[in-house]
């Protein structure tokens, strides 16, 4: 198991954002993390990669306890992340943005080797012809690709993708899905938050479902899609849903 999340809870003041979350992720897989808005998906990512520590529980990455480590220590151990809200380093060029990933990620490259690694990652996500532009000048779809390239250039064991498809048009989504599949085929393990159900169902090996901070279901896409709890979480009323599905 590359990632084990054990009994993780997170409280913000009176708000219970995560409660007793348990799951494991096997190497080489794509796992989808789904759930309604406000279910705690991004919070779970933040706990896994050390933006803040969990209130209770453990995160184990490649056999090592990483609970409570600062995010840069987690990054060095081979865990990279693409953000939901794109956060390019605006005053740097696209290439420099990606170089930060390579320089400070798992392999800690020197600046010159990072540059060639960055170009490789940019080629892979189809952004190489923009390499010398400032990140500020990219459109949303391109910024999403930049996020992905930056995470890739860190050569991580595990990639956390937070809604990389959100805000893209259908043809952009198809392109991005293709890119994610090739990344998986190169041996990266991926944990992705995604709202576009069709996409996440078709690409994931495993899916887990979060609702009100708790895991309510897990399994392969087929199982999850037919789980009444999941349907209830998304649509509110199982009878209503059943009726809708029957029609």
């Amino acid at each position, binding site marked *: 198991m590359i990632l084990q999340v054990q009994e993780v809870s997170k409280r913000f003041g009176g708000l219970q954002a995560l409660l007793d979350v348990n799951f494991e992720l096997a190497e080489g897989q794509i796992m989808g993390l789904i759930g309604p808005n406000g279910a705690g998906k991004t919070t779970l990512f933040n706990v896994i990669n050390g*933006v803040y520590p969990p209130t209770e529980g453990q995160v184990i990455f490649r056999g090592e306890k990483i609970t409570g480590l600062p*995010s840069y220590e987690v990054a060095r151990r081979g865990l990279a992340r693409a953000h939901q809200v794109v956060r390019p380093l605006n005053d740097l060029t696209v290439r420099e943005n990606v170089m930060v990933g390579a320089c400070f990620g798992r392999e800690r490259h020197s600046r010159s080797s990072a540059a060639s690694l960055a170009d490789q990652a940019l080629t892979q996500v189809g952004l190489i012809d923009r390499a010398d532009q400032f990140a500020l000048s990219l459109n949303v779809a391109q910024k999403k690709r930049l996020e992905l390239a930056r995470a890739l250039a860190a050569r991580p064991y595990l990639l956390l993708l937070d809604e990389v498809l959100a805000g893209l048009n259908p043809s952009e989504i198809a392109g991005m899905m293709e890119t994610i599949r090739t990344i998986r085929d190169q041996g990266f393990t991926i944990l992705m938050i995604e709202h576009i159900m069709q996409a996440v169902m078709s690409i994931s090996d495993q899916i887990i479902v979060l609702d009100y901070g708790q895991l309510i279901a897990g399994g392969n896409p087929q199982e999850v899609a037919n789980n009444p709890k999941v349907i209830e979480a998304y649509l509110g009323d199982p009878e209503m849903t059943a009726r809708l599905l029957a029609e």
Partner: protein
Amino acid sequence: MNLWRQPGFWPSFLLVFLSGLVVLVLRQDTLRETAFTVLMFIGLASSLNILMGYTGYVNFGHIVFFGLGGYFGFFLVSEMGWPVYLAALGGGVLSSILAYIIGAAVLRLRGAYFALATIGVNEAARAFVSNFEPFGGSTGLYVNFSAYDRYGGAGQALWFTFILLWLVVLAVIVVSYLVKRSRFGLGLSAIREDEDTAMVMGVNAPLDKTKAFLISAFFPGLIGTLYFFKNGNVEPDDAFRFQMSLEILVMVMLGGKGLLLGPIVGAFAYERLRGYLLTSVIFKNLHLATSGLVLLLIVLFVPGGGVGWLRERFPKLRRWLE
């Protein structure tokens, strides 16, 4: 990396190197005094740029390191009888140690809160030194003239100090460039743009910004010692002028923050402008107001500074205008 093959390094290095060389060839005392001030501000502005321009932490207390490091170095010269070059190093090291201590507290703050805290540090340091008897309290310290004998009299000592300053400023330029082009410098840029994202990408922000602060603080300590040694005395109001902290900041903005050439051009321009205003008949009494007006126009209309504007306007020149 081979420094001598970097197009972005040469303009800055040559500018400082040649201006010092001209002074040494012409050997005029008044020219040396002017050049001393300009070089000093280039050194101070460039070292501030490492923290402010590269890392994005705006320090209003840069002059604290000039003041405290300079005080300590001067103390080593006048009370302990150290040669000035060793004393200057001592001043620099002390400044870095202080930066480490101060940084442990204030580098946790971000944005305007950090800026405010550094204003407090500046004032606390001034008030403290005014009361600190080993440093002469509010009257400060005076150098014993026998200290100049070691260098062949006061006149020779001034030339010697000038050469030391020139070398220190050249070192600031080299270090600034190396930092900018290194992996460390890339990490600093990432911190400047978005500290949280930088950390998620693996940048050890707490450590890296502390390092940047130490480097940035080292040079003012050196420069302060040389400046006070040249003047022959040091007193609190001279060493911790909040105004001067701001002037250095203005120089960085004037030339363009985050650029190697920016603070150099900014310091030159600001000093020349001030020199002109102070001597002109019309502006003599209004030099401060006129400087203020120039600053306002820069902030409002050329926020990237002079060099930044050139880079925008002529993208082909970017290789040379780093």
